């Protein structure tokens, strides 16, 4: 062997100067650069999608963390806030605290008299829970009754979404030129030389675009029409349709072609509001220099105002396809112009349970439900999982039975979570008769889900402890069990904890099994124990995502942010724990 190594002919030296060698080197450099580029590209794509996802959720979810309120000065009367005329706690609890708020709003808009408008103002601008804060304050200090109190009343979710700019696109401009208004209430005429020309031009352009779209569609139909055989009965009907479309387009074009001709604004076109003299006028028809309108919020005075003293507000979403009418918006705009509308951090989002009213709905129920469920899961999983891992890894004889158990634990980790949900339904609810929708059952089901993860992670952590430590312990006369519990287990603990926390984070985000055991119910009250009906955070997200209100869409995204923050915190905790225990020695 040594002789062969010394033979100069046996090993051929590499000629580093040859072309082939240089080419080989270049090829290797290229391959390495290519590999790096692939890696960076993959990371960039992943990062981009992550940013898009998180950005989208944050943008959608931010409105959920604030709420809009209107500042009102109210004088609560004993007859309103007390059920029997006394100031006993029970009597005050049952009082109608929205009534003083309504009275205050009525003072703000005295012209609102019709039944429909009053309903809109009192029940669609103010939240159903607007009186809750006032109730709390008066119950704490009944002396406030009969005295003027400044309250910050919660607004309804649609009003809130409008004020946050989520309901409709909104363009505000300062008026150009002077504006003459014919009256302060009712239908009025607004005159302003050339002031509406731009708006009119925009409307005319929209007409032209619509005409072009109709013509293009009609053209496509006409083209296909040529392919039909002459005498086909469908030909005549189709031709009639094409003709009708073309004449409609022509009419639109004619309207668009006359730049000075006034246009009527309806519920299917963007709304134009003019804010002037402390009031708001909605334009019903518009010409270049003159517009007709209806007063939504009475003006202080009629007459002529100078340039810059009036504004136009364009609501891009047509009135017919949004949740608030122009009248609602006019009131909100008026209150905002008077500085009565304020934005607050929505502590309610974290301190109240679910509600049918988006502005009152909060996460607390889901949060507490999740925490209780996690508690049950942890209490069941950690001791069982770690004990099973220690036994299987350190003490169990290596035979066919333990092999079978090992294979089945690995299989269990791959079972879809909904199957565990079905199992929980069949066994825990139907066989053992445990309460439906309870965190106890949720925790049991999630424990089944997490157990294999913890066992596998713990076994890996135990296996990773260097055998020299075990030998050292045995060498000084420690028994096998002493070696495991005194030395191997403490060294494996960071890995075990990491595995456990990652398993728990997995369980925290799990939804499907909880749906099957009934944790999907609409539950307003915050659960107090593991046997009370509850929902969990991801289930709450699932429930809200199904609701049509835009405010609930925001709440959904907001709840996702909270859930993600929880998961990040848990994973961060896992990292911190691992670092802490690893650095100890």
């Amino acid at each position, binding site marked *: 062997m040594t002789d062969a190594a010394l033979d100069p002919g046996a090993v051929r030296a590499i000629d580093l100067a040859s072309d082939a060698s240089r080419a080989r080197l270049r090829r290797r450099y290229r391959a390495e650069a290519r590999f790096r580029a692939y890696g960076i590209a993959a990371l960039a794509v992943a990062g981009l999608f992550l940013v898009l996802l998180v950005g989208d959720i944050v943008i959608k979810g931010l409105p959920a963390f604030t709420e809009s309120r209107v500042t009102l000065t109210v004088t609560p009367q004993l007859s309103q806030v007390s059920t029997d005329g006394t100031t006993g706690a029970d009597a005050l609890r049952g009082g109608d605290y929205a009534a003083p708020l309504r009275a205050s709003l009525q003072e703000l808009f005295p012209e609102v008299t019709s039944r429909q408008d009053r309903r809109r103002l009192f029940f669609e601008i103010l939240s159903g829970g607007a009186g809750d804060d006032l109730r709390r304050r008066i119950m704490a200090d009944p002396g406030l009754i009969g005295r003027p109190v400044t309250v910050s009343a919660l607004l309804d979710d649609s009003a809130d979404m409008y004020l946050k700019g989520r309901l409709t696109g909104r363009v505000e401009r300062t008026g150009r030129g002077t504006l003459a208004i014919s009256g302060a209430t009712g239908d009025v005429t607004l005159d302003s030389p050339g002031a509406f020309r731009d708006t009119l031009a925009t409307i005319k352009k929209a007409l032209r675009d619509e005409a072009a779209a109709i013509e293009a569609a009609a053209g496509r139909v006409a083209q296909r029409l040529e392919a039909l055989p002459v005498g086909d009965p469908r030909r005549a009907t189709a031709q009639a349709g094409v003709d009708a479309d073309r004449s409609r387009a022509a009419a639109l074009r004619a309207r668009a072609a006359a730049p000075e001709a006034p246009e009527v604004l309806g519920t299917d076109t963007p709304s134009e509001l003019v804010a002037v003299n402390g009031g708001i006028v909605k334009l019903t028809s518009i010409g270049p220099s003159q517009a007709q309108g209806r007063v939504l919020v009475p003006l202080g005075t009629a007459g002529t105002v100078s340039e810059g003293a009036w504004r136009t507000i364009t609501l891009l979403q047509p009135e017919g396809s949004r949740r608030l009418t122009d009248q609602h918006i006019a009131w909100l705009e008026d209150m905002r112009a008077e500085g009565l509308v304020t934005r607050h951090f929505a502590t309610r989002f974290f301190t109240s349970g679910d509600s049918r009213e988006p502005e009152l709905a909060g996460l607390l129920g889901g949060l507490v439900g999740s925490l209780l469920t996690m508690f049950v899961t942890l209490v069941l999983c950690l001791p069982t999982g770690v004990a099973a891992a220690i036994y299987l890894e350190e003490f169990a004889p290596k035979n066919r039975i333990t092999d079978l158990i090992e294979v089945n634990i690995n299989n269990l980790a791959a079972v879809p979570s909904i199957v565990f949900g079905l199992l929980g339904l069949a066994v825990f609810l139907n066989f053992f008769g445990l309460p439906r929708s309870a965190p106890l059952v949720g925790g049991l089901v999630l424990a089944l889900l997490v157990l294999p993860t913890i066992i596998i992670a713990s076994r890996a952590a135990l296996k990773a402890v260097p055998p020299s430590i075990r030998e*050292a312990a045995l060498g000084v006369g420690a028994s096998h069990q002493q070696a495991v519990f005194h030395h191997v287990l403490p060294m494996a603990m960071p890995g075990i904890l990491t595995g456990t926390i990652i398993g728990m984070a997995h369980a925290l985000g799990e939804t499907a099994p909880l749906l099957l055991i009934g944790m999907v119910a609409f539950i307003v009250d915050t659960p107090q124990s593991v046997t009370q009906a509850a929902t969990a955070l991801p289930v709450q997200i699932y429930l809200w995502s199904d609701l049509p209100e835009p405010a609930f869409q925001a709440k959904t995204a907001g709840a996702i942010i909270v859930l993600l923050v929880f998961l990040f915190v848990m994973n961060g905790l896992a990292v911190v724990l691992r670092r802490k225990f690893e650095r100890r020695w």
Partner: protein
Amino acid sequence: MVTDHPETFHNQGPTTVNRMADLTMPLTPAAGLFTANEAKVTARDVTVHYGEKQALFGVSIDIPERSVTAFIGPSGCGKSTFLRCINRMNDTIPICRVAGEIRIDGADIYDRRLDPVLLRARVGMVFQKPNPFPKSIYENVAYGPRIHGTTTSRQELDEVVETSLRKAGLWDEVKDRLDQPGTGLSGGQQQRLCIARAIAVGPEVILMDEPCSALDPIATARIEELIFELARNFTIVIVTHSMQQAARVSQQTAFFHLGHLVEYGATEQIFTAPSDTRTQDYITGRFG
């Protein structure tokens, strides 16, 4: 705790002298003269299988008390395997089977009534790579006395720790930082800590499996001095790859080759006048 050594392969031969009582009692080695004494460890016809593979072929040897016995031989010759038979560390390997007879002070250590854990308290071991526990220096040394309950008070334990560290020649270097992690010491210090840890239990025999192979020459020299010192009180068996080391520290040398004990005798004789040609070839560097 149930012993997990394979009973089936245990030598069932008659036990002439039953000195089980000795095995369960921690003995404090009496200071004696540095002379070769009667055999402390006697092995007769020891055979070891790892699964199908036979690693040792009928090894018989007498290891005298309070002296250093070196096992030399090329890699894979079975010297470590035999060393690990003396404190039954091979029991922890499920596929390992040991046959034959090993006696310490006349008592069969593979007797089924013997708890291997107690045996290991009497027969300490120092491993190839320094393997202190990831605990403080104090805790490393105190661990053995603690689990065996040989000390009753904190003061006694402190004394045992100090004595052991002194015997291992480490006390002066670590006395001010006993609460620091043992893993923070240098390689040589770690190995001396491991020796102190082994001494603290009060063993009679100390097995050393290539204790200097991971150390630099200076640390090695210190350990060798230490071994020389320790031989006054303990019976030391050392496996080494370095023939110079064997020549320097040991009184007896055993040469293993391919699972056979080829030659065993006084170190001087092995290195100067080996009777077997294989020994001759090995110590002159023909192979290995």
